[in-house]
């Protein structure tokens, strides 16, 4: 027997999803910008191809990243994804070898047992079906975990599990039904024919002992086919869309496509590649310090997919970038959030099923028509010429200690510098950008750029990571932009700054915008190692925490900020250091308010360590020379 009516649902589902995947991919490809198209082509037919395949295997099947961060969760994904892959893979081979003929239609592989009930009695066949049972068992074990996760999130080591919408639920049940139904269907068939291996076989004979297995088998084959069909058909409407999308995304990523600051096919792909695994929720300080657990990236992605108004979610974020680091799919979450911030409020519209299957490319209202900030009142600019330009930044003006230390350092190292915003400067513009108002930020950027150009400086030193990031990314300057930690490091290396060693134990807090934001991790530590004894904390580099004072979050209250700051300070002062060092005025102020330990900027520590240079005028005139010539007579 080669065909049976019950396979139709499966076939429909299968061919639908293949067709759909192809169409959707084409659409995405079409939507890519021209340059990105080229990139992708090169990426696909070039060296990155191998890399992509490897990554697909490691991430989409093995789920390595998740395994690393959280083994049980990883195992769950692994067993389901990889297991299923194996099942299909070996199923096909099985059908090919043992089937009546070669090169079968997919359903032959899927429902092999039904069509070859006699198969697997002895010899190699038995071994093979044992192998198949093993895979099935493997999957079922993962399924069990998933089930437990739903019931008690604790089991797989997740604090929060994402909330589901109805379609997701249906898809989920159908997914969960697939393997049990296969198990039962196979078992019953095996039971009838006395075939099957350790799993299906044993179960089969067990059921056969008290159930009319022959009659029962058929309906369960139906169930199996149906659940498969349903799952495939619903897939595009649910978070499981991430399975096919991720593959496409990996190619795109490896071809060097990035989110940029505009909405596009790539960012859309990313939103669809989010599997709502919830790792970002665990990583988010707003969740574990401030108890806000409905604004994390997973929810943002979901909101965008179901085109809801995500403006509140978008603005309620510290933009610390911890989730970017943690995301197993490697979605660029913060850039996507920035895009939404620029968008402001999007209008919610109920979509027809058809629209849901083929959502039109998300269009975002361009800059708001309203009361836009205007800075035409800014004063004229005529700075004096200099080599090094020091820009303290707004926040630094609230931490005079940093300014005075920087002055001391600059003078001690004999640099010809000019204090750009000594009498108060204009904001660098990043706060505006973080509020999604790029056009307005431009005005400030242009203003400051002019100042910098006119000063003719070679180097621009700033004490504020917030300014540093924007100087680096959004200013088009032909000067070398340095954060003061980097600048100090250079001074030390070129030997123009003589420092003594302070007997102090120091823990370093990496500011978000300097660390994850601009990738400056080492310089500060080098400097600190040079003058103090630097201790390790549990939150180094990519894994560092946000102090909570972030300008990026417009929504949370002072109290919530404080909660975050307290937790961070507590963490970093665990191995009670003498000084909790940081390199950001905002972090300094925020942390100082949250701990007993002395909080200091690296500049302050360095300034303290400066050795007074011995100048000639300081040398006492030991032997008193006679000034006038002595008359003899």
């Amino acid at each position, binding site marked *: 027997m080669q065909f049976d009516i019950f396979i139709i649902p499966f076939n429909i589902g299968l061919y639908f999803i293949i067709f759909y995947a192809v169409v959707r991919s084409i659409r995405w490809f079409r939507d890519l910008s021209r340059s990105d198209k080229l990139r992708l082509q090169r990426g696909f037919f070039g060296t990155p191809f191998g890399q992509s395949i490897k990554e697909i295997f490691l991430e989409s099947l093995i789920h390595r990243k998740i395994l690393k961060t959280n083994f049980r969760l990883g195992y769950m994904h692994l067993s389901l994804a990889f297991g299923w892959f194996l099942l299909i893979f070996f199923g096909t081979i099985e059908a090919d070898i043992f089937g009546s003929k070669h090169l079968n239609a997919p359903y032959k592989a899927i429902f092999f047992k039904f069509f070859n009930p006699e198969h697997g009695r002895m010899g190699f066949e038995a071994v093979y079906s044992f192998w198949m049972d093993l895979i099935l068992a493997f999957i079922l074990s993962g399924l069990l975990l998933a089930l437990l996760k739903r019931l008690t999130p604790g089991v797989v080591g997740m604090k929060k599990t994402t909330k589901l919408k109805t379609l997701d639920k249906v898809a989920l049940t159908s997914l969960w039904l697939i393997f049990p139904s296969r198990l039962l269907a196979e078992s019953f068939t095996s039971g009838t024919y006395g075939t099957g291996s350790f799993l299906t076989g044993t179960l089969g004979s067990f059921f056969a002992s008290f159930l009319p297995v022959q009659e029962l088998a058929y309906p369960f084959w139906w169930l199996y086919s149906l659940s498969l069909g349903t799952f495939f058909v619903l897939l595009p409407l649910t978070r499981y869309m991430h399975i096919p999308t991720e593959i496409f995304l990996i190619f795109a990523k490896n071809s060097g496509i990035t989110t940029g600051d505009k909405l596009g096919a790539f960012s859309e792909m990313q939103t669809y590649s989010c599997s709502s695994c919830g790792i970002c929720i665990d990583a988010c300080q707003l969740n574990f310090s401030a108890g806000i657990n409905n604004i994390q990236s997973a929810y943002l992605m979901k909101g965008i997919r179901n085109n809801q108004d995500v403006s509140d979610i978008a603005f309620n974020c510290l933009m610390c970038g911890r989730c970017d680091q943690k995301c197993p799919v490697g979605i660029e979450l913060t850039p996507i959030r920035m895009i939404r911030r620029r968008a402001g409020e999007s209008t919610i519209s109920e979509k027809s099923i058809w629209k849901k299957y083929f959502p039109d490319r998300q269009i975002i209202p361009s800059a708001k028509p309203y009361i836009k*900030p205007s800075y035409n009142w800014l004063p004229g600019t005529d700075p004096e010429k200099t080599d090094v330009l020091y820009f303290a930044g707004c926040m630094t003006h609230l931490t005079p200690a940093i300014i005075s230390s920087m002055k001391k350092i600059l003078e001690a190292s004999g640099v010809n510098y000019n204090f750009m915003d000594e009498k108060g400067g204009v904001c660098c513009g990043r*706060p505006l950008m973080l509020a999604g108002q790029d056009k307005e930020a431009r005005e400030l950027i242009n203003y400051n750029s002019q100042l910098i150009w006119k000063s003719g400086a070679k180097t621009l030193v700033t004490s504020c990571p917030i300014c540093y990031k924007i100087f680096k990314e959004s200013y088009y300057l032909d000067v070398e932009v340095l954060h003061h930690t980097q600048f100090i490091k250079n001074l030390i290396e070129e030997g123009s700054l003589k420092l003594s060693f302070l007997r102090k134990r120091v823990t370093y807090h990496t500011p978000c915008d300097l660390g994850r934001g601009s990738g400056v991790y080492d310089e500060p530590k080098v400097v600190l190692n040079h003058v103090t004894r630097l201790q390790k904390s549990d939150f180094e580099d990519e894994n560092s925490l946000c102090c909570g004072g972030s300008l990026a979050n417009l929504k949370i209250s002072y109290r919530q900020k404080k909660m975050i700051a307290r937790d961070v300070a507590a963490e970093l002062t665990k191995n009670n250091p003498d000084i909790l060092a940081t390199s950001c005025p*905002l972090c300094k102020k925020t942390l100082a308010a949250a701990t007993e330990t002395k909080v200091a900027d690296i500049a302050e520590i360095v300034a303290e360590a400066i050795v007074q240079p011995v100048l000639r005028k300081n040398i006492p005139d030991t032997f008193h020379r006679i000034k006038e010539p002595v008359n003899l007579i």
Partner: protein
Amino acid sequence: MGNFGFTLIKERHIDFDANDKSIAEYISDREPSFRICIECGCCSATCTSGNFTPFSLRELQILLRRGENNKVKDEIRKCMLCGKCTLVCPRGVNTRNIVMLAREAFQKQEKYAV
């Protein structure tokens, strides 16, 4: 109409009951800390914009409370959102969000009024 070489002068009173306080309500619904300002003026004192121009957040937010919105509408645009005020505020008022919400409220007013 006769011209006598002088005219009626508009009353200077803040007509509290006639004024439109919807903007202020919009803000304090979304940012409750708007209510706890005590007019100490720290924000205006430290303000980066205020350094160059007579921009005073303290004044603006009290004008909003009194429904004297016209002046605020233009002035509020001068804020650079740099956040110094948020750091110095003794009552922990989320000043930046107040500015954002004020702009938003004015925008909506314009959009839906017409």
